[in-house]
């Protein structure tokens, strides 16, 4: 399952890095969608959406937080939870965790906390592909569960923004179990009831797609995001032919009935708050 994470990296590794403002670069970035050079300032102003081809480039968790949360409303949760090496994969893995922590400023692959969206209190979790490909190990799973549990306690909506290649291979079966426990937590939230919204961004695959991400009361996705269970390379090897164009894109899954809407980044916050505004108030049906 972790294979998808890898094949995604293999598909477009360097271009996305060029588009990352954290890297030293000149005033221009190259779009990984169309290859055009874009003026960095307008690229960032346009929320990392290419003005030429509308390709939605990946955002870090903090960039997304800025996109979604009302300014100053965010209070982070569980900022001290870090991954360990339960199977003894070794120093190389521990070093990678450390450098990802330093580079992203996150304790692990998910940033979570309380905030408001247009004044609506929300329990929010945002995955960051920059941290081990957004892979879900114990920490990500635990933070997702806590987001869902806190939403249930407070009877407020949970919003999870997914961006993950799947399970954290280095945690072995511990990472697989995160699928089960996050799904169980979703059901507890459902029963409150409190709304559960998911925004799938590129990529949302394997163990994350096949667990809490698939269970949103409403599931939105960004244009062109890769979504699915099995990695593209694995599918290609299985069918021994090239994949059809658009396979596993968000548009593909909208057509196949698994997404509620594909929403451009510029409309994302408005769409989310409109939906929450209708779901996140007590039933007023007179009983």
């Amino acid at each position, binding site marked *: *399952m*972790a*294979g998808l*994470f*890898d094949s995604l990296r293999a598909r477009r590794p360097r271009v996305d890095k060029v588009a990352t403002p954290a890297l030293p670069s000149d005033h221009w970035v190259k779009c990984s969608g169309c290859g055009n050079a874009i003026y960095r300032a307008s690229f960032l102003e346009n929320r990392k959406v290419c003005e030429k081809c509308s390709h939605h480039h990946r955002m870090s968790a903090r960039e997304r937080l800025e996109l979604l949360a009302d300014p100053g409303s965010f209070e982070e949760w569980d*900022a001290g*939870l*870090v*991954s*360990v090496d*339960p*199977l003894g*994969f070794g120093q190389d893995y521990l070093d990678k965790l450390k450098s990802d922590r330093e580079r992203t400023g996150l*304790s692990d692959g998910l940033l979570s906390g309380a905030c408001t969206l247009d004044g609506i209190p929300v329990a929010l979790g945002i995955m960051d592909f920059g941290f081990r490909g957004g892979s879900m190990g*114990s*920490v990500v*799973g*635990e933070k997702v*569960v806590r987001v869902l549990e806190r939403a249930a306690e407070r009877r407020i909506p949970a919003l999870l923004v997914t961006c993950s290649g799947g399970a954290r*291979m280095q*945690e*072995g*079966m*511990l*990472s*697989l*179990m*995160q*699928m*089960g*426990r996050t*799904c*169980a937590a*979703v*059901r*507890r939230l459902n029963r409150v009831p409190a709304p559960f919204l998911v925004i799938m961004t590129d990529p949302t*695959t*394997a*163990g994350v*797609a*096949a*667990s*809490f*991400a*698939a*269970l949103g009361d409403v599931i939105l996705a960004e244009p062109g995001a890769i979504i*699915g*269970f*099995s*990695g593209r390379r*694995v*599918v290609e090897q*299985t*069918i021994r032919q090239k*994949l*059809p164009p658009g*396979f*596993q894109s968000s548009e593909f899954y909208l057509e*196949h009935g*698994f997404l509620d809407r594909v929403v451009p980044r510029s409309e994302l916050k408005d769409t989310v708050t409109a939906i929450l505004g209708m779901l996140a108030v007590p039933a007023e049906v007179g009983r």
Partner: protein
Amino acid sequence: MILEVEKPLLELERKIRELQEVDRAAGVDLSAEIRLLERKAQELKENIFGNLSAWDRVQLARHVERPATLDYVTHLFTDFVELHGDRFHGDDPAVVGGLARFQGRPCLVLGHQKGKGTRENLARNFGMPNPEGFRKAGRLMRLAARFGRPIFTFVDTPGAYPGIEAEERGQFEAIASNLALMSELPVPILTVVIGEGGSGGALGIALADRVLILENSVYSVISPEGCASILWRDAARAEEAAAALGLTSQTLKRLGLVDEVLPEPLGGAHRDPAGTFRTVQEALSRHLKTLLDVEEHALLDARYSKYRQMAVMGDL
């Protein structure tokens, strides 16, 4: 199918048979030599199977003669009536399920089903479910829960099928829905990993009050081959990956991810199916008895708590 690890043993056992033949046919008394060799064989057996590597266990778990779900259904259950279909798209032969009785008690039994030969394996897609397999399982489990019947699931799959149409029909959604469903079904759920526990395709029918695993079964987040090709770009290093992934029953028990490891006959379940069935039946019976004494609400809380704890983390 002969495993690399058991070749010396098989060779020795062949020699013993030859000597026995000579002993019988030629009337030469070789009983002392035979006894000696038999002792050696037993030592070798214990040596080999007492020191199995993770990769050896992967081979045993995949052994074609290893008892499969329908074997357990036949030997542990009575009155089995197989039920088909997900009521949406199809009937997946990689997942079998139906009503049956366990020690007289009506229940639901289901599991992945690999084929015994090539033809059946093709028909059963090597035990790799499509979304309709998970959805059939979900439908049957809902039925069982409505009538208060306990649920037994048997895990034996390389994984969910990675096909184009499986993706089209929402493999990810089908697995996730089962996980959510199984977390809230108000009846006892008991799972036995009887062979290969392949990632999400295994877990999709394995969120349970009790997860038991046969000693030589494996359960892994990714196949050793897949892991090796990602970590080292070399699928041939699968043996190494198997060791690293912590996929053996012992490691899973140590991590608290399974509830009990069920011992297998020396050499693996396929060397003594009847003994294996007895072991599994006894364990299921014992666990079911405990679970039946639990109130519905407590059952669900315990199930949640159990999974709630499956995380190993540190603090900054």
